[in-house]
Structures are given as C-alpha cells and as structure tokens.
C-alpha cells in the first residue's frame, strides 16, 4: 500500500511540468470564447482539422511501416552494409524538419534547377512538394527513425528460441518473423508510431515551410496575426485532446495484443545471399539517400558559398552548448521516464492511469506554446528563475518526456512480472532486482530513449530560444537566426554543423547499444 502511494507521488512529480502547461490550456477554455476562435471555426478550422487528421494518420502509418520493415531487416538479416545501416538509419533524425522541408522545396519545386531541367528537356511534370502530400512525405522521412530504433530494440531482444520453435513447426524464417516476432514487437511499434503521430500533431516548421494549413498554423495565425494567445491556447487544447485520444487508442490496441515475453539469447541473423542481399542493400541505401544524403548534399551546395564567411571560432561554443544542453536534457528525460514507467507499472489506480498520458502529452503541444505556457507562470511566481537554465530543463521535461517514456515503457512491457515475483521469492531486494534482472534487459530500451531524446533536443528550438540566458547560442538557434530572414544558404552552415555534431554521439551510442542487446 505504501509502495503504491510512493508510485503515485513519482507519477505526479514527473507529470508536474506538463500539468502546469495543461492547466494553462484548460484556463484558456474557461476564458470567454474569443471571436477570433469563432472566426477561425468559420473559415479555417474545418480544413485545418481535416488536413491535420490526414497528415497525422498518413505519417504515423507510413513511418510505422517503413520503420518496422527496416528494423526487421536490420535485426533479423545480414546483408552487405548492415553494420553501417544499423546506426546510419538514425541520421535523418539529426536534420530539423523545417530544414528538410526547405531543402525539398528548394530542390523539387517548379523553380528548382532539377525540375526546370527535366521540364525543359523531357516535358516532365510532377505534383508540387508544397502540398499536404509533400508535408506527409517530408515528415515521414524525418520521423521514421523513431519507429526504426524502438522496433529494432524490440526485435533484437526477442528470443531466438521462438524462431527455432517456429522453424520446427515448418515455418520459413520470414513467416516465423511475421507470425512470432511481429506480435512481440507490437507494443514497441505502436508506442513509437504514437510518438510520430504526436510530433506530427505539434509540427509547425514543416507545414509552414510548405504552406499547408493545419491546426498548428491556425494556432500561430491567431497568436501572431490576430494577437490572440488565448485562441492559440484553445487550439493547442484540441491538439492535446487529439494526442490523448491517440494514446488511449494505442493503449487499447496494446492491451488487446498484450504479450509479455522474456528477452533471451541474442538473435541469430540470417545471412542474405545473391539478389536478395543486393535488394536489401539497395533499398536501404535508397531510403537513406533520399532522407539524408540528398538533403545533406543540398545543404553542402548551399553552404559552399558561405562557409568561409560564417564558420569561425564561435562554432565551437555553439557545438559545445548544443551537446551540453542535449546531453543533460536527455539524461534528465531518460531518468524521469524510467521512474515514470516503473511507477506506472506499480500503480494501476485511476491516478496513475490518467496522469501518465498527461505527463507525456506535452509532445503534442507546439514548442512555442509550451515554452510560453511554462515560462509565464514560473517567471511570475519565481522571478529568480529568470535567466537560469532551470526553466529550460523543466520545459524540456514537459515536452520530451514522451520520447523517453515510449521506448522504456515498451521495454518494460516485455518483462514478465513473473521474473520479479520469482526474484522476490528468492529474497532479492529491489536494487539487486534492478541491477541483475531489469538493467540487462532494459538497457537497450534506455539507450534508445537516450538517443532519441538527445537528437530531438539537439534540434530543439522554441524552448531554448525563449528560456536561454543572454548571449547563449546553440546550433539550432544559429539556424533560426539565419532562416528568420530567409538566409537559407548561410543557415546551411549551422544546419550541417548540427548534423555533424549529432553524428558522433549517434554512432557511439549505436555501438554501445549493439553491445547491450
């Protein structure tokens, strides 16, 4: 009983930063209806809601399928380049979505050299990238690595003996993977697709760069254009509701398909030969090429004329600050996510059930709204917090807890409670249980949580921008400074530095992860 109470407290503390913001959003709904909202209902919100729903569903499904297929390929098969792809497929995460959108708009739109040439030479025409379909394409390319990483950890921690049993029953390896491993990985796939859906809900950068009207663009129109923050908060309230529905759906789907299985011996990878190996390498290269190599090449061509003028000693500072903020932030996010996941496991009361999704709902709130929604009450309640990094980290937790929680909760769901019960019977204490049983089985998921939140935090802009101390610049802020007046070619320099700075930690962590699993 006391343990349960303690768990509830942990959940409440973990959820506190997000709750501050959510209370503000509820407050906006209590305020008298603004006529800005009525105006938007009439002219904007019907189309914006429709676009948002189409975008969220299409990106979640596309990223879910792509990420799962790549995860299965890398986890279960061996083919030329597998070791490289296993970490390189995370690279698209290191490019901020709005930069990727600008690159695709710049390289595929009507006025781009490529399109102009194809049009003049061959009379080719294709639909504009500046459309709902284009936004869905760009978001899928930048978000599929979430699913890829989380699903891969799930596949890799699945037991080889299930595949062997399936083989004894006369299944081919592929059938076995589909019939046995896929169901085991379902919680991870659903959780990561939900993460993708929430990030899409909150996205402003990509849809603004491609001029697609969604709920977030309606939100900024009310705030920046009509000076009505209340209306913006009311729309943010819709986004949170949609996110909660998504989480509810994910939770239902997961409990219907609930499978708790022990992790076990490491997986034996099937070596692909001949055309199958070639196909695996080619397809993976193609995806990595479109989502990473092509945009980076484009950024390089933009940067080529400006790097000499822009790249100087200040960049060491930008890089170090970016890595420091993202590193500390990711450690915080992962620790609190782990506590939250364990507390939720022990506390199945209505408090635990309802607070956990609220704690992670911040991921569906556009960053600027969340930053202001947290900064305003904290700065007026405790002025001494102004200009410290405390508000910044609290806001990081409010926004990014979902990124840490999704892989860890999915990992924890695969651990049978029977393991704990057996250990308790054998007289082991909680610390010993954690060190000897949980940590070895969970460290893959925790590493995944760290990688994802680290890379997300490297790119983070609105919170850092608002809450940083004076003169504190990071790479993401440098990109913003240059793009805010459309200087894309100069912005390519810090954008590339952001990719490079994220590269080394990604590779290093990926190496550790493959040891872990």
């Amino acid at each position, binding site marked *: 009983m006391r343990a349960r109470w303690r768990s509830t407290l942990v959940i409440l503390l973990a959820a506190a930063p997000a709750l501050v913001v959510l209370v503000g959003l509820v407050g906006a709904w209590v305020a008298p209806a603004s006529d800005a909202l009525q105006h*938007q209902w009439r002219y904007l919100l019907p189309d914006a809601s429709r676009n948002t729903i189409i975008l969220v569903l299409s990106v979640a499904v596309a990223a879910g399928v792509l990420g799962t297929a790549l995860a299965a390929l890398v986890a279960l098969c061996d083919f030329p380049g597998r070791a490289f792809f296993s970490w390189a497929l995370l690279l698209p995460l290191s490019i901020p979505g709005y930069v990727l959108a600008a690159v695709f*708009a710049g390289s595929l739109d009507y006025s781009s050299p490529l399109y102009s040439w194809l049009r003049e030479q061959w009379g080719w025409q294709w639909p504009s990238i500046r459309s709902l379909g284009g936004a869905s394409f760009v978001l899928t390319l930048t978000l599929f690595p979430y699913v890829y990483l989380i699903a891969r950890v799930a596949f890799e921690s699945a037991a080889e003996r299930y595949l062997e049993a399936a083989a004894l029953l006369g299944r081919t390896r592929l059938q076995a993977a589909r019939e046995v491993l896929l169901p085991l990985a379902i919680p991870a796939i659903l959780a990561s697709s939900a993460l993708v859906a929430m990030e899409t809900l909150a996205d402003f950068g990509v849809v603004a760069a491609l001029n697609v009207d969604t709920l977030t*663009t309606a939100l900024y129109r009310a705030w920046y254009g009509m000076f009505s923050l209340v209306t913006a908060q009311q729309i943010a309230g819709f986004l949170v509701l949609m996110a909660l529905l998504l989480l509810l759906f994910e939770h239902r789907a997961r409990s219907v398909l609930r499978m708790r299985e022990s992790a076990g011996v490491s997986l034996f990878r099937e070596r692909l030969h001949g055309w199958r190996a070639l196909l695996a390498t080619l397809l993976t290269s193609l995806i990595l090429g479109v989502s990473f190599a092509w945009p980076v090449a484009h950024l390089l061509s933009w940067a080529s004329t400006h790097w000499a003028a822009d790249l100087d000693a200040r960049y060491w500072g930008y890089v170090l600050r970016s890595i420091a903020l993202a590193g500390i932030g990711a450690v915080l996010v992962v620790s609190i996510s782990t506590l939250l996941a364990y507390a939720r496991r022990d506390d199945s009361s209505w408090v635990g059930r309802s607070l956990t999704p609220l704690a992670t709902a911040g991921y569906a709130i556009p960053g600027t709204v969340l930053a202001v929604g947290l900064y305003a009450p904290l700065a007026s309640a405790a002025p001494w917090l102004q200009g410290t990094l405390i508000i910044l980290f609290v806001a990081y937790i409010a926004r990014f807890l979902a990124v840490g929680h999704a892989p860890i909760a999915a990992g924890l769901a695969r651990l049978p409670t029977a393991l704990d019960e057996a250990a308790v019977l054998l007289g082991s204490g909680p610390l010993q249980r954690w060190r000897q049983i949980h940590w070895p089985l969970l460290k893959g998921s925790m590493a995944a949580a760290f990688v994802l939140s680290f890379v997300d935090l490297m790119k983070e802009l609105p919170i850092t*921008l608002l809450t940083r101390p004076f*003169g*504190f610049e990071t790479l993401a802020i440098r990109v913003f*400074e*240059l793009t805010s007046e*459309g200087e894309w070619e100069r912005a390519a320099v810090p954008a590339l530095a952001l990719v490079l700075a994220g590269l080394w930690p990604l590779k290093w962590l990926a190496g550790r992860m493959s040891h872990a699993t």
Partner: protein
Amino acid sequence: MQARASNRLLSYALAALLLWVGIGLPTAQASEPVVVYSARNEQLIKPLFDRFTAETGIPVRFTTADAAVLIERLAAEGKNSPADMLMTVDAGELWNAANRGLLRPTRSKTLDANIPATLRDPGNRWVGLSQRARTIVYHPDRVDPRKLGTYEDLADPAWRGRLCLRSSKKVYNQSLVAMMIKTRGEAATEATIRGWVANLAAPPFANDNQVMEAIAAGQCDVGIVNTYYLGRLLQKQPNFPVKVFWANQRGDGTHVNVSGAGITRHARNPAGAQKLLEWLSAGDAQRLFAGSNMEYPVNPTVEIDPLVRSWGSFTPSRINVVEAGRRQAAAVRLMDRAGWR
C-alpha cells in the same frame, strides 16, 4: 577496461561542460548595461551593439526570439523583467506591445528630428529604425512595366495565372492588407484580395525568395515582395531576371513597414536605452542598421546602399505605420474570407 576508461573520460567531459555552461553566464559589467529583447536577428544587430559599446562604454546584452514570444515574456516578467528595450521587424508587433502597456513613452528631440513622424508611434512609445518597402516585382522579358501601376491593379483578370504571392501567414502581407483597408476600406480591399487569389499561378509560397525564383523560372510574371530579399539575390547573381516596380506612386505611395524599437515600461536603464535608440537613429549607425540588410534608412539624411539606390527613388505611403498594427487582425480576417492561404 577500455570501456571503463572511456566512461571516466565521458564523465570528466560532462563535468567540464557543466562548469563551462555555468561560467558562460554573463559576468558583472562596469557600466550599467542596456538589455534588449530583439526579434531582429543576431547578425543584423550585434555589429551595431558592439560599436555602440565601443563608442559609449555602455554594454548591450540581448536575446532574440519571435516578437510575439518576447512580448509574452515581457508581460509575464512584469516589473521583474531585465529588458530595457523591445526591438521588432514589424510595426504591428510594436503597436501590440504598446497597446498592452509594455512600452513607455520617450520624449526625445533627437528622435523627433531624425525619424519622420509617419514612422514612429504617435504616442512616442516606439520608433522605426529602418524602412522595409514591399512592392511589385516583375520579369522584364514578360512584363511591360508600363502595364503596371498599383497593387490593386494586380487583381485585374489580365493577370490571371501570372501572379505569385507569399503566404498570408507572414506579417509583411498582413501589414500591406491592413494599410489597404485603411486607405480603401474593407469592401474594396476584399474585392482586390479576391482578385489576387483568383490570379495566382501557384499556391502561396513560404517566403519572398521563392516568389522571385518562381518569377525567374517562368512559373509566374509578377509578385509582391520586400525589396531587400531581391537585393540579396542580386548580390549573388547580378543578372537575376527580376525587376522592381514602385507601386502606387500616383496615389497613396508604396507600402512600407518598419523594423523598430521601444523602451519597456519597467526598464531599469531607460536613460541608456534612450541613448541607444538615439544613437541608432543617426549617422553611421543608421546607415549600417539599414544597409546591412539592404533596407531603407528612416533618417532621410543618411546615405542609401548603392545597390538599393539603383532601384530608383520612390514615394512611400504617407499614412502612419501604426495603422498596420491597428488593422492587422482585421486584415487577417479579410484574407481568411478571401481564401488567401
């Protein structure tokens, strides 16, 4: 063993970073600094602030973000705000900040003398520091400039399928439409905007560069942009095939917005802030403020950048830019009704 060593190395590195992040916080300064919240980006303001500090000994601390966010920050911080000055790239945001009581009036003969009355707040709470002209651009091979005249003319069916516009989400278009409402009224302006939307050759673009690139590539023939974007394109490609046409020269003049600043209500160093404002409104500072981004100085005695001068002189709108803020919300509604995305 090696893994352990690398772990230790990593924790040392992390500790050093933490220390360094802490040390990186601003240290005490001799003279009381002026603190600026700026929506004008770092590379455009830092060189000026550095120069101001060198000349006057007054240090300037600043942070940048979107104006709407900085305004919420000022409002939340209230009396405890460290900010002495709010700087934006648009008159609408300054109007909004003044309207919310976040700025204080400043009486200054220097500012009155240096800045035309239409480019500062009638209540003296903010001033424009550079002008941003938003006018018509065209492709010289496909458009005879004698056929061009006013913004409103672009609603004529003769331009069907030939016009490119930026998204109505950008404040520059919201200000333009707000000023049109002020001069012509809502009904006439709405008819114009509907005409523009009907004439679009492509869905609205995310920025002014894309509008001009579409004109150059033949997707459309005319567009409406802020001239400094063209200046930047011309610096890179001197033969970029897009020309400036000064709109509404026979009538109410070409639309201008300002990048400007005001002193905050709870400023701790209002005297220093006023000094900075006055310094920015004159001489070399004024030339740099506008010139570094190829905008137009507000101070008529200051020399204009040669490339910018090559577009010829023009008559700007004679209406006070404060109207852009006052009517911005109405402009947004109107653009929604007319279907300008």
